[in-house]
């Protein structure tokens, strides 16, 4: 572990309850300076709730967090000075221009960065005088991040920053987040996109039903599967799980709806025995594909469910 001064965020046993439902069940982790830390999980896992407690928008029912060295339950005002937030599905004042809203938000803080430079960094220069309602989804999201940066915060909280964006806009946003890392900012983001977590995050905490079920680097998480390859297929008719598990080289079997996934270290051996089994039983395989294991598989492996359930 790095030394204590480098720790930007220290989350201790945070709990949030809504009636009898426990949204966040005593989670804890720490984030180092300059890190991009991902909170990953399906909808309703408690990612947003955790993030909102860390930025002071929700009061924890138990535990606390230290952000930039300040206790969120005692020094919220100090915390707010050192953090910048982008919330899920927030709309802004549609009738103001990009420049006007940045000046407005800048006025809420003591310390400010140069607004024209910030607009430039977020690739919004040509939209400086445009009203917010004329911006595209990607531009709005970049503006939301610009608003989080007006006071030059140490730590950035991004709640599902790329949800609903097209692939091009997502890539642009990733570049921005990575550039901020170069500048020494610490970032905490939530996402339910595996590829995004893989590209951006230094470390990932996987959440499910309010619990922290894994915390590691992306490659560390994939390694924990102990199998590098996955075989995915669909078939018609009943199929016994036991028979699949007994195939050569198979370490684990996952399934969701009609699709089965076999995790294996020896792709060739597993494939051969799968084909043999199906021809023996006269079963018709469809949509057969092989790939390397991803974070998605890690999640399925740990919870038995998909990240994005239809």
């Amino acid at each position, binding site marked *: 572990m790095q030394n204590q001064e480098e720790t930007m965020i220290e989350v201790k046993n945070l709990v949030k309850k809504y009636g009898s439902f426990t949204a966040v069940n005593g989670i804890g982790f720490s984030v180092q300076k300059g890190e991009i830390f991902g909170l990953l999980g399906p909808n309703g896992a408690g990612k947003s709730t955790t993030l909102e407690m860390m930025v002071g928008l929700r009061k924890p029912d138990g535990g606390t967090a230290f952000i930039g060295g300040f206790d969120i339950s005692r020094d919220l005002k100090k915390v707010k000075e050192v953090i910048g937030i982008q*919330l899920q599905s927030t709309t802004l004042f549609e*009738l103001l221009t990009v420049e006007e809203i940045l000046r407005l938000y800048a006025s809420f*803080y003591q310390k400010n960065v140069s607004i024209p430079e910030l607009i430039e960094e977020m690739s919004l220069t040509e939209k400086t005088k445009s009203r917010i309602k004329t911006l595209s989804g990607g531009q709005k999201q970049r503006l939301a991040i610009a608003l989080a940066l007006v006071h030059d915060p140490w730590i950035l909280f991004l709640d599902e920053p790329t949800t609903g964006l097209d692939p091009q806009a997502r890539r642009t946003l990733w570049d921005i987040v990575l550039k901020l890392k170069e500048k020494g900012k610490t970032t905490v983001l939530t996402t339910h996109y595996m590829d995004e977590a893989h590209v951006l995050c230094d470390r990932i905490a996987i959440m499910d039903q309010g619990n922290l079920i894994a915390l590691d680097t992306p490659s560390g998480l994939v390694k924990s599967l102990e199998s590098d390859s996955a075989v995915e297929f669909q078939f018609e008719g009943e199929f016994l799980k036991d028979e699949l598990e007994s195939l050569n080289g198979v370490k684990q079997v996952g399934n969701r709806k009609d699709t089965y996934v076999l995790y294996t270290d020896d792709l060739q051996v597993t494939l051969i025995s799968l084909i043999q089994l199906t021809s023996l039983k006269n079963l018709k395989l469809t949509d057969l594909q092989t790939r390397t294991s991803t974070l998605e598989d890690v999640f399925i492996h740990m919870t038995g469910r998909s990240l994005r359930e239809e």
Partner: protein
Amino acid sequence: MKAYWQLTLSQLRIFLRNRQVLFWTLAFPIFLMVMLGSFLGNGTGISVSIGVVDQDQTMQSKEFFKVLANNDAIRLESSISEEKALDQVKKGDLQLVVIIPKGYEEMMKEKGNTESFEIPVYYNETNLAFSQVGLTIVSSVVDGISKEKANYTPSIVTDSRGVESLDLKYIDFLVPGILAMMIMSNNMNGVAGQIAAWRERGILRRMQGTTLKASTFIAAQITARLMLNGMQALIVLAVANLVFGISVNGSWLSLITFVILGTLAFMAIGFIIAGIAKTPESASPIAAFLSFPMLFLGGVFFPIRDMPDYLQPIVNVLPISHLSHALRETMNVGTPFMDLGSNALILGCWLVGAFIIASYTFKWE
């Protein structure tokens, strides 16, 4: 301080750029004022329509008609047939019919006549108040003529002088009412709708994540709305002045004070509604539920004294009653502020009470 100005400026920009809202919040009061003012505005306080059937058709009978016509309070119509005139009385088109029978001139010329000549007057019993006024006027005219004929010199006369030289029409009553209505709906309905919508859309939550203080946010809201209301009130007054020649008789300072008091009181009520309403869709029906009774009971269009007695206690508590009364007194009569202290006090109570409740019911999210 920087945040306060930026927020005020932003709010004003949002108002001014929302052309449609800006237009309709101004167009509605002006439209209402011009419509009602044109239809009802020109009548004097009391006007009695009297039909005269001249069966005599002589110099003397025409003289009688002329004397009646000189009276400002009555509108005179000469009818040809008695039947037609009586029919009009029944319908309510005329309040009174005076018939000058044949032989009126002959009687007037006869010097030594001691027998009194009868002039029949028919009136509508269902509208007694107006008929009584008409009867009094006709009697005094007849009295005057008969005294003149008898060469009677009165030993005692009354010397009546008008105390207030105010000639108030309905439009004078209406303009301050419209002003009060505008202040109520722009603030109560406006604040409730806007805050509820901002909360729904997460705008307030995003601001809560900054170091902005709620008090700064609310202060800026108030400032922007005061400026906007002041502007709208001035436009309405200007239109009233240009179209109907209405002017402010009292002190502008006192007028402005009441505009501010009214704005604050109704804004506070708007904040309560925004706090209670779960969605922006439910905010506007709640605001409408409160504003409609106030519109009709609160002395906006009709004088409060015309309300039934059992409603008076309710009416006298409504903030709109005091706002419209104070604005009216200031504009029409020019009553000094100190004499309107009770209105200011009651509005002040609403203001303080509503802000206290609002601070408990207000939610950022």
